């Protein structure tokens, strides 16, 4: 399988608290990430707030320029933002995020919003636009008579369908979904997840699916990368990572999912809180909360290594032979 998208050594940092005289604080939101997204696969990125997963998503799309490192799309480096090339690339890469009401213009009918990308990228004209919009609406399960409605007249699930239709208008090859179902109720969430799956399977879409909801990620993703404080700590096929999480953080994350019909017994309760990215702990960033951590974890940064078919960054895992680079 050929990689559609490759990220190499991605770092993003922000400066905050810049005052007239003070020296600025530097916050590393993403701290060295290598990722490959294969054509037609769905890669899940999970992590808690502050783990840098949304920043990573925006860099993969070229919406944010990394502080260092690069993103290759079809083997080509990402063009600089706002250039002609970059604008053309927008049609091929789309973003769907959590709050559909914020993503939609409340003064435009939903048909007009779905038609907008077609017009911007000059993909259809006149009556063709109407036909394409009708086809897109049908694909995402919106009724014909809803074309002239405004966003506030629709339910949350329907709004997210509009956002998806708009994202699909340009026939993108690559889609980043940032918490696309987190704001939806359970019964509606399943509808939207199914829709995304169907679209992905029909079109062979390549997708990066960012979420804190492990159950949804398990359901829709082929491969999952777990992030902690700007780094990937474990990456594996979703079949194995949930059945047998290896990194202590992944283990805690998986066991923290409340399951219907199961009490609190046997859950791993982590101490403390996810640390502030502005005050990253030394060594392994997870060590202050880890049950296995010892002195070496406080000094040495664990590399992301192959452990029996999966990547994990932990000094306490039994060492597996490294694959030849």
């Amino acid at each position, binding site marked *: 399988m050929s990689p559609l998208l490759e990220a190499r050594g991605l770092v993003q940092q922000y400066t905050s*608290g810049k*005052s*007239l*005289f*003070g020296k600025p604080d530097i916050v590393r939101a993403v701290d060295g990430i290598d990722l490959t997204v294969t054509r037609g696969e769905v890669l899940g990125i999970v992590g808690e707030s502050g783990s840098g997963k949304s920043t990573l998503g925006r860099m993969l799309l070229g919406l944010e320029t990394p502080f260092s490192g690069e993103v290759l799309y079809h083997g080509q480096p990402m063009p600089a933002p706002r250039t002609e090339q970059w604008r053309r690339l927008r049609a091929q890469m789309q973003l769907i995020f959590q709050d559909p009401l914020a993503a939609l213009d409340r003064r435009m009918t939903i048909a007009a919003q779905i038609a907008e990308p077609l017009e911007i990228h000059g993909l259809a004209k006149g009556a063709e636009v109407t036909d394409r919009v009708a086809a897109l609406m049908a694909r995402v399960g919106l009724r014909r008579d809803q074309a002239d409605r405004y966003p506030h007249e629709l339910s949350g699930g329907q709004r997210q369908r509009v956002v998806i239709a708009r994202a699909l208008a340009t026939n993108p090859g690559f889609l980043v979904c940032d918490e696309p179902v987190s704001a939806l109720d359970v019964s509606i969430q399943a509808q939207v997840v199914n829709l995304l799956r169907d679209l992905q399977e029909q079109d062979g879409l390549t997708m990066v699916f960012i979420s804190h909801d492990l159950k949804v990620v398990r359901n829709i993703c082929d491969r999952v990368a777990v992030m902690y404080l700007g780094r990937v700590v474990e990456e594996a096929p979703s079949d194995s990572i949930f059945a047998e999480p290896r990194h202590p953080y992944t283990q805690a994350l998986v066991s923290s999912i409340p399951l219907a019909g199961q009490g609190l017994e046997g859950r791993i309760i982590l101490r403390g809180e996810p640390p502030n990215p502005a005050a990253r702990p030394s060594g392994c960033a997870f060590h202050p909360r880890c049950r296995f951590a010892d002195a070496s974890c406080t000094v040495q940064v664990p590399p992301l290594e192959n452990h029996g078919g999966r990547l994990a960054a932990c000094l306490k895992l039994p060492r597996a032979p490294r694959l030849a680079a």
Partner: protein
Amino acid sequence: MLRFTLAKIARAGLTILLVMTFAFIVLRMSGDPAQVLLGPDAPQDAVDAFRERWGLNDPLWQQYLAYLQQILNFDFGISMRDQSPAIDLVLERVPATLAITVPALILKVCIGIPAGVYAALHRDSIADRGVIMMSIFGFTIPSFVLALVLVLVFAVTLDWLPSGGQDTWRHAILPIATLSIGGIGILARFSRSAMIEVLGQPYIRTAMAKGLPWREVVWKHALPNAAIPIITLVGFMVGALIAGAVVVESIFSWPGVGRLIVVSVSNRDLAVVQCLLLVIAASMVLANLCVDFAYGLLDPRLRQKRTQ
């Protein structure tokens, strides 16, 4: 905190400098003081002599540097019109202006804020609607119209109060009323919406859920939060104490700073206008500084940001 204070003061100084520079340039580009003061028929010799005396023939940047140097020596120039120091002319007018703007401000705060808070606490009641209506009336009607109406009613028709001048405290009543009515309206409406916003916050529900009596919820939890935006507006009003009565002073022939502005601008009395602007800018910037520090006292989130 010290660093924050220094930065604030530096920024305030910069603001004043910008205002001064802007005034300096605009004044010199908008007309020749020699022509205005000496009249259109003045002989060329007199005009030249005047220009020479006030340094108006030097290049603009030289005049500007000379002006800055003067200011740093606390020399605010001499009035071209009556030859006395500009700063004295300005300062002697300040008490008269404050005599009407300070009582007006007290009225705005003492009536506007309680009215707004009361309306917010009794939302959709008759009192609330009354406050909304009165405040719309207060801030939509221009002050010169209001002044004329008040004069017409209380001076001309009823003959209760004098229509102009500064002889007794009774002369101050109509100017104060004119000045305060608009501000009361604005402050009432603003306090009402600030209070309504705060009352809808989750922490108010928390305070109620813990069993606090309503009176304490309002006094201890709602008002301290609503005060934060209200302080900003009051700060603006404090900043306008010196310069905020131009129209009212003109209408009621009140010999304050506002009248001096009007007279000096029309006479192109450069030193006086510049001095006026400096005093006004300084008073506004000072009021702003006070608001900033008041914020810190009221809002711990800001205080922490500053000490970091």
